[in-house]
């Protein structure tokens, strides 16, 4: 096998170490118990340590004999816009109601594509809002108010 460093390997290992370590630290705050009666902290501690160890293994392997992976470019705009759309939906669906929240979420999401023209985006958002309202509220009787209290209804 050819020897080379691999940035994605190190990054992935780092993520595992970070998350595994966080769970280890967190589980130390709970009762560990005995093997007979394991406390709430014992199992997460065990698995957290395992994930951390595997993460270390991946980092070491990435530095010595990494996997050849093309990391490629990151579509930052899409990442930002889609996360914003999801957060917006969760935050405002109760307050704004189904229709305005769906429309804004859909419109925000269309911005993720760089090739989307404004008029097309509006049309897609409008169409999806109508479709979602028909499917989820009219068809499936989802109990979310169409217009929420923030709008003064």
């Amino acid at each position, binding site marked *: 096998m050819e020897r080379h460093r691999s940035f994605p390997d190190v990054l*992935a290992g780092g*993520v595992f170490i970070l998350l595994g370590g966080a769970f280890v630290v967190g589980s130390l705050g709970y009762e560990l118990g005995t093997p007979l009666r394991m406390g*709430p902290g014992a199992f*997460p501690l065990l*698995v957290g340590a395992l994930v951390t160890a595997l993460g270390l293994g991946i980092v070491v392997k990435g530095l010595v004999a990494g996997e050849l*992976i093309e990391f490629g470019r*990151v579509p930052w705009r899409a990442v930002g816009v889609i996360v914003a759309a999801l957060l917006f939906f969760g935050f405002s669906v109760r307050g704004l109601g189904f229709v305005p929240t*769906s429309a804004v*979420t859909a419109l925000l999401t269309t911005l993720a594509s760089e090739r989307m023209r404004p008029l097309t985006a509006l049309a*897609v958002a409008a169409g999806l809002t109508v479709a979602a309202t028909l499917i989820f509220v009219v068809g499936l009787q989802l109990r979310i108010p169409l217009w929420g209290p923030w709008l003064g209804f």
Partner: protein
Amino acid sequence: MELLDNIALGLSTALLITNVLYCFLGVLLGTAIGVLPGIGPTATVAMLLPITFSFEPVTALIMLAGIYYGAQYGGSTTAILINLPGESSAAVTALDGHAMARQGRAGAALAAAAIGSFVAGTLATVALAVAAPPLARVALRFGPAEYFSLVLFGLIVSIALARGTALKALAMIFLGVLLGTVGQDIYTGTPRFTFEQRELYGGIDFVSVAVGMFGVAEILRNLENQQTRTAIVSKVKNLWPTREDRRRMAGPILRGTGLGAALGVLPGGGHVLASFTSYAVEKRISKRQQEFGHGAIEGVAGPESANNAAAQTSFIPLLTLGLPAHPVMALMVGAFIVHGITPGPNVITEEPALFWGLIASMWIGNVLLVLLNLPLIGMWVRMLRIPYQVLFPMIILFASIGTYSLGFNAYDVYAIAIFGLLGYLLIKCGCEPAPLLLGFVLGPLLEENLRRALIISRGDASVFFTRPISAALLVLTVAALVITVLPAIRRRREMVFTEDE
């Protein structure tokens, strides 16, 4: 004949008008998402799961199962017509299927795929009906120690089939197990890792994890390079294969069915492995090896039969042991639980109508799929023209609404964003998302049975080695681990996956 009685019971359930209707809806949706690249069955089932909560349990499961095996049919259409696998297992079909389409034989390729899928689906459903009851009887004797070892075995075997390195797949599994511990502890009720947020007491919803990892992360991958779609072979004619084609198809279909039915039982995407293996086998034994890659009908018929047979038999571990073999199955575990049914060996005796109804519906579904896919092929071809710019906002919006409606909990929607980002980052680093989801679903089971087994044995950990079934499963687990990690075998495994890609 007990089997015949059971099949009669199953058919009487599956043939109820509502069940046929939802079976049709399931396979229709499944075909649609299979045809459309960039949206897979996992994300779809995750989105639709909340909707099915109001259905009868058997109706809900029939529809969800239909989406899963319907997607296997649809994926091949896209693979053949535009050389883009709509579903991961259709990647092999693209090799010879698209070559056939370029030679103007798209009709024959589609027919080979559909007929192969139908034969495989039918035979594998019979295999499922025959193999499931005895397995369930064995599983009824399992105690917590056996279940712990079995779950561990299932998790480890699933990485043997995943792409990428074994180390990363292992880390993904246990990260999933770890995330599954968020929420109230089952024995003491202590809230764990909840940051004092009441909304997190019930744990992270697995629909959020599935939608994030399989829906959002996939969309971000697709938005990396937005090229225009490759030209579509839009004219499909001569659907009925010639006598020569029919003769060449028969062997590969039967061999593919056998391979697929056997490999489908394995956890972790046996259907992908099945189609690759079938292609390798057909190529090796064929007298026309030079034709492979340039439009050999055997290279379409074999793998397509294999992946459909595997899709069917992957229900065996779910229905007999309660172990999901695929992320979609993991979501179906959720569907069972919501309806108050614990998936596992008891389903067959306590809910015989549901068990046999689901199996019978698969056969009906396969008939419906042939009708949907061959005469209506023109409709699917037109659907391929829907631009991605319309599709991905639809996925995001419907996913948000579906997930929110699970429990009217905004945190479930925030979790989609978090898992979308985490999934995207990890996928970019060469980690497969499927092991994480399986670990996430099976993690609580692992912890519960570990602790229960230790309570029963008064804290003596040797119980896992002294009980024979448990010990055998642990030995198999270690063997599976050794096989995946050993470099020589790993190289061969990579070869199977990358051959001719």
